[in-house]
């Protein structure tokens, strides 16, 4: 871009003008720098999360071995002597997430297929915002609903007798929290799966109908498999959300570390341990305090892995039709 050196292409009307700005745009560069800083802040946030989790966790593992932490089955940090086997609260988290997904996957996928294949545009316009409302309800409200309605009015009456110990007389249970979490994540699965199914090219639709398939067959044998990776990505995202949920579990599942998948027992999840310990009487610097960070680190790693899987799946499904 230095016109002074070209000779053969010189225009006839005098020396060529430079098209670049006359002054170095320091203002522009300053603005670009500050905008870049805003973007980099996100990387800083992740770094800060990792650092704030890592340092107390490493200190924690000075006194408690990693094997004892990850494979021990006794979680009693407040007792003497304190035991730090994390399995009970991990199983608690997984139990609640399991019951939540058992509810949310059929309901969410059913709603998604209904919205994308069966619903008229008017019905869609009415139902979609309602699902968004469900997604926006504060988790405190869902937790209160789970413990004061789902548990006594839905689970206790419908539970078959003494199966697995019976449901009566239990103020907290994993199933109540699971159903509350399930209700919360139905919109995630429904909305993302619906998007995935709508992204399938019309040609597949039309072709299937032209070949004489019924609506049910088209939905289940053609569209659903075509959108499968998007649907699976939405389910993985929903699991990650269920694992990370705090308030519903604190309110409805109890605070009793119990190594069981029994739905009518009360358990403690990783998130509720962090919440109840941090708000209780725990002095900074003790092993109790550091256990908060160790459990938090484990939770962060679990959800990070799930999110990366989900992102990879979404990227893969997007490429297929591009």
């Amino acid at each position, binding site marked *: 871009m230095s016109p002074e050196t070209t000779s053969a292409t010189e225009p006839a009307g005098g020396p060529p003008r430079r098209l670049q700005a006359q002054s170095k745009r320091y203002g*522009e560069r300053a603005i670009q720098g500050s905008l870049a800083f805003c973007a980099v802040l996100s990387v800083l946030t992740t770094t800060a999360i990792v650092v704030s989790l890592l340092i107390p966790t490493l200190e924690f593992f000075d006194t408690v071995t990693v094997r004892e932490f990850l494979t021990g089955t006794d979680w009693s940090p407040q007792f003497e002597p304190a035991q730090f086997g994390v399995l009970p609260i991990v199983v608690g988290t997984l139990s609640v997430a399991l019951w939540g997904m058992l509810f949310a996957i059929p309901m969410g996928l059913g709603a998604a297929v209904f919205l994308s294949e069966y619903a008229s545009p008017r019905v869609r316009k009415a139902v979609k915002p309602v699902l968004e409302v469900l997604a926006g309800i504060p988790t405190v*409200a869902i937790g209160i609903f789970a413990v004061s309605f789902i548990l006594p009015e839905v689970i206790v009456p419908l539970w078959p007798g003494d199966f697995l110990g019976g449901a009566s007389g239990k103020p907290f249970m994993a199933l109540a929290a699971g159903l509350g979490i399930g209700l919360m994540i139905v919109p995630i699965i429904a909305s993302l799966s619906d998007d995935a199914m709508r992204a399938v090219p019309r040609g597949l639709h039309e072709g299937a109908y032209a070949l004489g398939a019924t609506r049910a067959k088209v939905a289940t044998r053609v569209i659903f498999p075509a959108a499968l990776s998007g649907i699976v990505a939405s389910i993985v995202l929903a699991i990650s959300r269920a694992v990370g949920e705090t308030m519903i579990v604190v309110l409805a599942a109890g605070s009793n570390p119990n190594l069981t998948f029994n739905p009518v027992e009360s358990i403690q999840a990783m998130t509720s341990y962090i919440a109840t310990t941090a708000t209780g009487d725990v002095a900074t610097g003790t092993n109790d305090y550091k256990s908060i960070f160790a459990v938090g680190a484990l939770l962060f790693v679990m959800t990070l892995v799930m999110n990366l899987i989900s992102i990879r799946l979404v990227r893969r499904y997007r490429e297929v039709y591009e």
Partner: protein
Amino acid sequence: MESGAGAPRNRLAVAGARATTAAMLRDQPRGDVVRNALFAGVLLAAVLVSLVGLAALLVQAFVEGAPALSTDLFTNPPSTINPETAGYRPAIVGSLLLISGVILIVVPVGVGAAVYLEEYADSTRWWNRLVELNIQNLAAVPSIIYGILGLGFIVRGPLDLGFILAAGSMTLALLVLPMVIIAAREAIRAVPDSIRQGSLALGATQWQTVRRQVLPASIPGIATGVILAVSRALGETAPLLLVGATVFVTFDPTPFGSDGYSAMPVQIFNYALRPQEEFQTLAFAGVIVMLVVLLAMNSFAIWLRNRYEQRW
């Protein structure tokens, strides 16, 4: 097509052909018809279960909480001994201050990051892709981890601000920042390139183009994203529990005061934990207030988007 005397005959012929084709196609095997109807029924049931669940939640909240709805709710401080005169005042003030702080942080930083990523960054460079991946990951980190971040970095650690409301604001701002960045990016991306090219062709610098053409055009989308992010921040409890919103306060909190602060969802949680019937009613009343506010905010955001959305 002939008109006049031949038209009724043509219409009759078309109607007859249509009826015959329909009759032929209607001859679906009985099993198929039944199976289809059953499947549609199952799907409808799935949708209805969720809707009924939502309805049950709303109805229970309104029925249980209605007795406690009064102006006292908004003007009285909470109390452990006297549920009849307990209210939510410090929590309401706290929530308002918290989200004001969140807006102050999240709008410049979020829009700034979105502008950088959309307008200035070369998306083939690895560090820009790292930033994008980062934002996607942060959007899905559990909220309590942000509480731990706040506890370890803002309240204690390097910033060491103590358990003040500003720390809660910063924690919530970090929580919703990814949402705002993603929404702002969508809004900026929707502005057609021809606007930018035209502006640059007329001699404007890149920042002038952004400030005078791109940003004004994307404000409705950005505003919608900010409102939705703020309504998420309003309903979050877990991170606040870790950064100090558990102190039982009876006075109005201040942003930098070290006497403690509270927020609506935390106060609701506090009341819900107590066994007495009256406190449970208060908890439901608080839920009603929050639901009404959140519904109003979300409806406003959707109205904003529909009203000012520009079709290029």
